[in-house]
């Protein structure tokens, strides 16, 4: 089945309108297969993207572009127990998750 999501790129446009990711430390919650992550992850200093779905995370890792290798990290974690210390991130992105 061929489904296209957001062929006009509206989501990316609005994401960058609402936040300046340049050089920031970013946490993304509910990253799934990393579709949204790939739309901004070039800009931040580092991105940690979490989800509970192990299969989706496997796809996210496989699809991660090589230039993001050291900048983006996909982890399996619950959003109610984020495995990071206090005041670690400049930006949090709740991706279709509330």
């Amino acid at each position, binding site marked *: *089945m*061929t*489904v*296209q*999501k*957001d*062929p*006009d790129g*509206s*989501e990316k446009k*609005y*994401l960058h309108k*609402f*936040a300046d990711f340049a050089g920031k430390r970013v*946490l993304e*919650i509910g990253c799934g297969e990393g579709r*949204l992550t790939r739309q901004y992850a070039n800009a931040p200093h580092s991105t940690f993207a979490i989800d509970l779905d192990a299969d989706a995370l496997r796809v996210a890792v496989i699809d991660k572009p090589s230039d993001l290798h050291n900048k983006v990290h996909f982890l399996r974690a619950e*959003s*109610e*127990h*984020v495995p*990071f*210390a*206090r*005041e*670690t*991130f*400049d*930006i*949090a*992105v*709740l*991706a*279709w*998750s*509330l």
Partner: protein
Amino acid sequence: MVHTLSEIRRVLVPNGILIDLRPVLDRWQIEVISAREIREAGRMQDFPLGLADDAAANQSVARAAENGWLVREQEEFFPFVYSWDSPKQMEEWIEEEWEGFIEPDQESNRATRSAWALADGDARVQVQMKMLITRWRKLEG
């Protein structure tokens, strides 16, 4: 959901930003689109389960704001398109991914198939989702 927002507040630096990005049910429009034209074919029906999800999300962010955890700075709606090769593919997707949340009503299904039958060879079927993006800021201290 409130726990998630509490965790976000914990890991954000003072003055840090939360971007909340999510679809909002609003009888999303179904269209048959080709290079030559766009035909509006109908709308989705919103089911109670999906509407309850939206209400719960709204309550959670309202609670976070009441608690003084976060301050809403900017908010906007924008369209997010899902597009398929045919009405059948759209119906299969809805059954697999969105069952219980939304569904085209019978009239919209009929109208979509009619529009499809009359459409050009390059036509696709699409749903215009309504997306909400909000920027919140964590207060200092």
